[in-house]
C-alpha cells in the first residue's frame, strides 16, 4: 500500500461518522455513557472515527450513515451547489475530499462523488487559481475556508511561484548547502 505512512491519509480516517450498532456489544460502554452496564444495545446510534467504523462495518457489526454535510437533504449540499467557493469546508471536515471518497467507497453512496466534484471544480476556479496567481504575499482571507487538500494545493502553487521570483530577483547563483561551512556539532 502506497500511503501507509501518509499522515494526511491517517488523519482523514479520524473523522467521526454516525453509526448504528446492529448487534449488542459488550465492553464498549465508552460509546454510550448513559449506561452503567458497559455495553451497547443493538440499534444504538453512536459516533465513532471512520477507521473504526470501517472495520465494524465490514464485519456487519454496525451500519454507517453519512455525516450531515454529505446528507442529500441537508443544507450544506445546497450551499455547495449555490456558492461552493464560500462554503467553509474546513470547519465541516478538514479532509472533505479524501474522507468523502473513503466513505462513498465504503458504503457505496453514489451521491457523494458528484458533490465532491462540483465542490472542487468551483473552488478550484474561484479560490485556488486566484490564490495561486495572486501577486501579493498577503494571505487571501478565504484561505481559512480551504480544506487540508486545498491548502496543500494552494501552497504548492505559492511556493513554486515564490521560488521562481527569488530566482528572477537574482541573488547567488549557486547556493551553498547550509551544512557546508558550518561546523558539525559533535554527537554526544
Amino acid at each position, binding site marked *: *500500500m*502506497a*500511503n*501507509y*505512512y*501518509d*499522515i*494526511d*491519509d*491517517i488523519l482523514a*480516517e479520524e473523522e467521526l461518522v454516525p453509526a448504528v450498532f446492529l448487534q449488542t456489544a459488550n465492553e464498549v460502554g465508552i460509546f454510550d455513557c448513559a449506561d452503567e452496564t458497559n455495553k451497547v444495545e443493538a440499534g444504538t446510534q453512536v459516533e465513532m472515527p471512520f*477507521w*473504526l467504523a*470501517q*472495520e465494524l*462495518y*465490514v*464485519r*456487519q457489526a454496525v451500519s454507517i450513515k453519512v455525516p450531515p454535510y454529505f446528507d442529500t437533504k441537508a443544507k450544506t449540499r445546497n450551499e455547495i451547489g449555490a456558492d461552493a467557493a464560500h462554503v467553509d469546508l474546513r470547519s465541516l471536515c478538514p479532509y472533505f*475530499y479524501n474522507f468523502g*471518497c473513503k466513505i*462513498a*467507497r*465504503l*458504503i*457505496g453512496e*453514489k451521491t457523494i*462523488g*458528484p458533490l*465532491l*466534484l462540483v465542490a*472542487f*471544480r*468551483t473552488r*478550484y*476556479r474561484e479560490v*485556488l*487559481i486566484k490564490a*495561486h*496567481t495572486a501577486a501579493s504575499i498577503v494571505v487571501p482571507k478565504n484561505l481559512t475556508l480551504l480544506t487540508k*487538500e486545498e491548502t*496543500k*494545493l494552494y*501552497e*504548492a*502553487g505559492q*511556493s*513554486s*511561484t515564490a*521560488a*521562481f521570483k*527569488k*530566482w*528572477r530577483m*537574482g541573488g547567488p*547563483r*549557486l*547556493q551553498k548547502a547550509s551544512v557546508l561551512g558550518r561546523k558539525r556539532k559533535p554527537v554526544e
Partner: protein
Amino acid sequence: MGSQSDPHAFAFSAAELEFLAEDETVEIVPNMRLEPLHLISGDFGPFRPQIATQVPLWLAVALKKRGKCTIRPPEWMSVEKLTQVLEAERDSEKFQSLPFHYVEISRLLFDHAREDIPDIYMVRSLIEDIKDVRFHKIGTGLEIISKEVTYALRLKNLSAMEANIVRPFVTQALQTFHKLNTSEAIPESGSIPSRQRQPVNQRDKRVLKGR
C-alpha cells in the same frame, strides 16, 4: 520513508533549468584567437577576432566575463520581434512560440551581456510584459481544466520555466480531478458488505489491527 506526496519531489529548481538553458547555442564575436575546443559537450571554435561563431551560452558567458567576446543576442530578442510577440500574445488566447528556455536565456543575457543588447531597457520591459501576459493566460488556462475535466492537458508552447512553475499545482489538481471522477464512476468493492465476517479486501486499506 518517503510515501508522502511531496509537491517538489519531482520538479526542477530554477537553477537547474538555467543549467539546461546554458547549453542553448548563441552567436559570439570573439576579440582574440583561440584554437578549437574539443569538449565533452561538443567541438567549438576556432575563435578568430571579429569572426562570429556559435557556442553554448555557458561558454559565451565565460568568455564574456573575461572580456574576450561580445554576444549577439538571438533574433527573437529584438525590439521588433518582441513587440510582435507581445501583440500576438495579447490578441490571442494561444501562447506564442518562443524558445523553450526564453525566460532563462533572457535573464542570463541581461545579467552578463547587457551592453551587447541593443535597446536593453525596451527589450527587458517587453520580455517582462510578455511574461506577465503569459502568466495571466496560464491562470485562465487553468480555469479551463475545471470546466471540462480532462485527463490529459496540452500545454502548447509553454516554456520550460512556465511549465515548471505551474507543475506542482497543475499536476496535483489534475490528479484530484482524476481521483474524484473515478471515485464516482467505479462501484467500489466495499459497497457490498461481505457475507462472512472475513476481513475484507485488505488491498488498499489501512487495517485496524496493524496500527
